[in-house]
């Protein structure tokens, strides 16, 4: 007997069936009728859904909230009681923090609070731009290296070479070639970070190539682009997302270091690094010029790292909590 039974006849509209669903057959005599199945299986309402998520991923949420605050600060900078961050006022230089100048003023009389608030823009821009660009470029290099065997050797030697130059030194050397600007800083740090992503992606690709389901896809004649799109890319996404957050954090630090030693963002654009660079000469007497941007920079980088740790625990259970 080969009767096919639809699980929920009254929910599957069938061709030719009357709009009210199939007419119900009268129950056979002598049999009890079970209560009809409900139309929709009820989903238990999670009142504490948000709370459950917070409890499971405290780091992601704490980091995310901190990051959101910095993001809003950067976005709403003009409305946060700031003045022009580049306005000079030589008569009011190196004032201590007060009700009027919350974080004091620097050597040129500029309001440190305003400069710090506007500086968030540079840090976030550099962090996220580098994370995105380095991920995309690294993904491309890693895919090519992992999939095209004859190129692998050459590409990996170049990557090895680039990775044997300490990243900050590499960024410094690249910055020496160009004028200091936010754009050039982003490019220099991106180039320094690409090899790491490429290595990671290549590793994932090489291990995936050996997976039976990828072999099966190859055997059944799936074309290479489809294999990459369907099988390889989705599996690189998790480790790459985690890597991208760490790149974001390290790019923010590198930007600050470049600006701090005078090879990064020029003083006309306030960034946490160059505010500290200008406080350098006076740090023994006017410590606050360095202290405030330092606190903001550290907190922002910490926030990104917390999000990264949380993502890693959530996306890669094998690594969770161990490292």
């Amino acid at each position, binding site marked *: 007997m080969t009767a096919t039974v639809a699980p929920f006849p009254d929910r599957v509209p069938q061709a030719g069936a009357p709009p009210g669903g199939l007419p119900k057959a009268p129950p056979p005599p002598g049999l009890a009728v079970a209560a009809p199945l409900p139309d929709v299986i009820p989903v238990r309402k999670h009142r504490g859904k948000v709370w459950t998520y917070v409890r499971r991923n405290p780091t992601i949420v704490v980091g995310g909230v901190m990051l959101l605050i910095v993001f809003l600060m950067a976005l709403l900078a003009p409305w946060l009681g700031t003045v022009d961050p580049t306005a000079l006022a030589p008569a009011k230089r190196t004032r201590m923090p007060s009700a009027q100048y919350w974080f004091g003023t620097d050597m040129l009389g500029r309001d440190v609070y305003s400069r710090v608030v506007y500086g968030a823009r540079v840090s976030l821009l550099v962090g996220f731009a580098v994370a995105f660009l380095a991920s995309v470029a690294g993904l491309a290099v890693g895919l090519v290296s992992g999939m095209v065997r004859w190129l692998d050797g050459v590409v990996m*030697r*170049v990557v*090895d*070479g*680039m990775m*044997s*130059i*300490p*990243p*900050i*030194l*590499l960024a*410094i*050397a690249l*910055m*020496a*070639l*160009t004028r200091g600007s936010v754009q050039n800083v982003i490019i220099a740090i991106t180039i320094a970070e690409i090899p790491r992503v490429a290595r990671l992606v290549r590793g994932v690709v090489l291990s995936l190539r050996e997976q039976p389901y990828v072999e099966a896809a190859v055997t059944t004649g799936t074309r290479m682009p489809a294999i990459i799109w369907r099988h390889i890319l989705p599996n690189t996404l998790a480790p790459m997302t985690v890597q991208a957050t760490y790149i974001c*954090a390290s790019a923010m*630090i590198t930007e*600050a*270091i470049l600006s*701090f*030693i*005078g*090879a990064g963002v020029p003083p006309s654009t306030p960034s946490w690094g160059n505010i*500290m660079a200008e406080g*350098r000469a006076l*740090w*023994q007497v006017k*410590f606050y010029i*360095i*202290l405030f941007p*330092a606190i903001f*920079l*550290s907190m922002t*980088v*910490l926030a990104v*790292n*917390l999000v990264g*740790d949380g993502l890693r625990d959530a996306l890669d259970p094998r690594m969770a909590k*161990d*490292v």
Partner: protein
Amino acid sequence: MLGYIGRRILATIPVMAVVGLFVFSLLYFAPGDPAAIIAGDQASPEDIIRIRATLGLDRPFLVRFGEWSWHILHGDLGTSIFTNLPVTTMIGQRVQPTVSLMLVTLVFAIAVAVPLGVVAAWKAGSLIDRLVMGLAVTGFSVPVFVVGYILAYVFALQLGWLPVQGYTPIEQGLWPWLSHLILPAVTLGLVYIALIARVTRATMLDVLSQDYVRTARAKGLAQGPVLFVHALKNAAVPIVTVIGIGIALLIGGAVVTETVFAIPGLGRLTVDAILRRDYPIIQGIVLLFSFVYVLVNLAIDLFYTLLDPRIRY
């Protein structure tokens, strides 16, 4: 074994060649025409072309790269644009402070980080573990110069325990030398400690769950020997690996630390060279640091067989 060592050493040649190519391109693509600078303001275009020919600047990229590599292999890193001194001389003058700083940092960081990681793994999940892991995340997040200024402000300016800035050569006594390096080493070491402690903890967690550790405990061995003799020995390979990889962090951090603490080392030289656009100096420093980094990691690779006799090549 010998074959492996040979192959491993040969494998560093292409790596250094890539580094060399990158560093050479730096000067090749650097803005500003050296011939025009040498010729001066009064020179005619013909003069500049003639000088370019005498300097060999008109020859193809690969020819010049080959010649440049030849000089490098003979220990000639070129001449500083700013001081007209050979780059090797200028680097030589600045080597001692940087090497001192790095060695002190290395010893300090390993001495702190490995026990921290071991204890964190032993007491996994406890308050100590969380503190160590918290310190590790903080260490990754607080930039080197921030740590440096806060330490210098508190311990040198406010408390007056240690000198604020500067460097004293070791020839003038051990304590003056060391006292100038304590704060910079703690500063530079923080990221490094975070990195090593994290890896030590992760590896130790793995090792501590193995049967032979349970056997060691079952036969009544004290906690100390179990952790530091039985377990740590077997966790050594990843820890030593990360110590080697972390050298890159130390090199990058040294540039900043030396700026904060006014130490006249290679990092300070790098910063000055950037501000003056002294490309030969930048080239020399990048080459030197990369070479040291590659050598250290080569040595560690070869060291594995001593750490873990199971590794055979």
